[in-house]
């Protein structure tokens, strides 16, 4: 079974500076990590590989420093890594990102399954997985909390707000995973050193892919970020209850009932 995992390097610090001119996040110099949901996708791919055999390839689009996340994915156990990096990719929205990822996946050749995290912690759109499935004309299952594969059929439990539904799809397919699907492994120091010293990361630029130049980067993007700003913390309200103990208890109970916390 050949599995492709799409990952993204995201800022890991609590505060990411915002460029006041462009409104974009200033990622350079910020501590970064593999997007948390994507680590669950990597883990699921590794578990499926140990069950069904085959290989796992991690793919990411990003600036050159995204290599760091690919090395970490190699240390977790993926077999190959591909970095899609080109100045012409800059300014991409989710539509462009899925377009470029699709081109790279086509170049990689035959595959059985694509796994993605359900969403990223920076963009938070949850769009790339589904858009990638559309680009590649694949059946897609989102928010999977369990995956089972038998022959060429994939069965997944799809998380809902009040339960889950079971969906089947024929391979090849694309699945985005929810966090409850597994616990991602953490690489050892030795595995990290091996990934950095022996692991191979293939780097492709726009010129290596069969793509329409007009559909990539800032010019290809269908959406524009007009403004980004740090959210203001919600001001908490305090209320002092006074009176006799009985009154205070009654008022407290009433307030808690009003918020459906008791009763």
């Amino acid at each position, binding site marked *: 079974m050949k599995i492709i995992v799409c990952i993204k390097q995201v800022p890991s610090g609590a505060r990411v500076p915002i460029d006041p001119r462009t409104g974009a996040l200033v990622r350079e110099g910020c501590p970064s*990590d593999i997007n948390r949901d994507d680590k669950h996708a990597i883990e699921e791919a590794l578990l499926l590989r140990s069950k069904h055999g085959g290989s796992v390839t991690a793919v990411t689009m990003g600036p050159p420093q995204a290599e*760091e996340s690919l090395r970490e994915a190699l*240390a977790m156990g993926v077999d190959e890594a591909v970095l899609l990096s080109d100045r012409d990719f800059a300014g991409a929205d989710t539509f462009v990102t899925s377009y470029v990822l699709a081109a790279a996946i086509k170049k990689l050749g035959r595959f059985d399954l694509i796994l993605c995290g359900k969403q990223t912690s920076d963009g938070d759109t949850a769009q790339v997985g589904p858009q990638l499935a559309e680009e590649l004309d694949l059946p897609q299952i989102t928010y999977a909390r369990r995956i089972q594969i038998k022959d060429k059929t994939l069965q997944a439990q799809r998380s809902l707000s009040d339960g889950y539904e079971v969906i089947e799809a024929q391979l090849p397919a694309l699945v985005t995973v929810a966090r409850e699907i597994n616990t991602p492994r*953490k690489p050892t120091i030795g595995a990290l*050193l091996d990934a950095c010293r022996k692991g191979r990361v293939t780097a492709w630029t726009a010129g290596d892919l069969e793509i329409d130049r007009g559909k990539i980067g800032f010019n290809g993007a269908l959406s524009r970020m007009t403004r980004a700003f740090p959210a203001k913390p919600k001001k908490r309200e305090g209320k002092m209850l006074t009176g006799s103990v009985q009154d205070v208890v009654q008022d407290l109970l009433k307030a808690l009932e009003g918020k459906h916390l008791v009763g």
Partner: protein
Amino acid sequence: MDFRLTVEEKLIQKRAHEFASAEIEPIAAQIDREKHVPRQLANKMGDVGLLGMPLPRKYGGEDSGFLNWILALEQMHYPVSSASSFMNMTVMVGRGIIQFGTEEQKAQFVPPMCTGELIGSWAFTEPSTGSDPKSLTTRADRDGNYWVINGVKRFNTKGNLDGPAVVFAQVDGTKTTAFIVEKNGLGYANSKPYDLMGNLGTETVDTRFTNVRIPGDRLLGEIGQGFNILLAAAAIGRLGLSIKSVAMAQAALDEAVKYAKQRTRRGVPIGSMQAIQWLLAEAAVRVEGSRWMTYRTAALKDQGSDIMKESSMVKLFATRLAKEAVDMSMQVHGSYGFIRDFKVERIYRGVKENELIEGSSEVQRSIIAGHLLN
């Protein structure tokens, strides 16, 4: 000159940070309060590959190099300074055995130290001497195929935990010689751990050797080679202590910055006051200078340079500047910094030790001057 960390170095740093945040930070206050570092922490460090990082893979290490080790140690010492002495001891003892030991000694003792199954210790200091090998009174006498060791060792860190101790003793009265002694055997008796001022939980004991018999093949290196073995390990020890100082000072500074933003006076954060800003700036400069001097010394070691002088220089520099930076950070806290609930109080108690152990600052000055005048 490129001062940026490589991808490999950044990933090692990040992994150590993750480990320290998940396994050490939650029990940092408990370690200080109970004066005890949980023994199983060493096994957890071993599972991740943190214990024997710069030691060869052939013997259970990771071949990481010393700069990677230093980057990891910095993260590991950040939450509480005593928890990661397992890492220092493994590398000092493991490297001593690898550099001077026989193939059998390396295979027997180093891999179980790298997993955390055995804990190494380094028994040099005695009640009457700290850094002078000529003044050692512990002696080793031949008895057929055995050596018999008698004497007392002071400040034997981790001396009560099972594993190999590198013990320095005089053979024929004047030949300083190192031996590998399995701790807690017949004739090996420990005092209770010292009630230290800070860095609590390091399990620092006195050990009395009363007719401790060890097989002849536990001689480490050659008779009379003890001083060379000591010097080689001391350079590594100083490097470790330097980055420990940096980590402690950084932790104190981070606390001071946080406090300066939170604490208000007349409605404004105290961080807006110049008196506080100057303290923070002076502390930050001390941390940053010490950090890069330590990184450079580790990089020199990785390049194959002798770091006898440089390790003394960085140890003298970083331990003093860290102490000053921690003092400034505490000053930012005002009276609150003197309360046990505040992390800076714990760091303040611990940071002084760095100027005293692994050769005091005065000893480092003598070593540096010796190199300059030689």
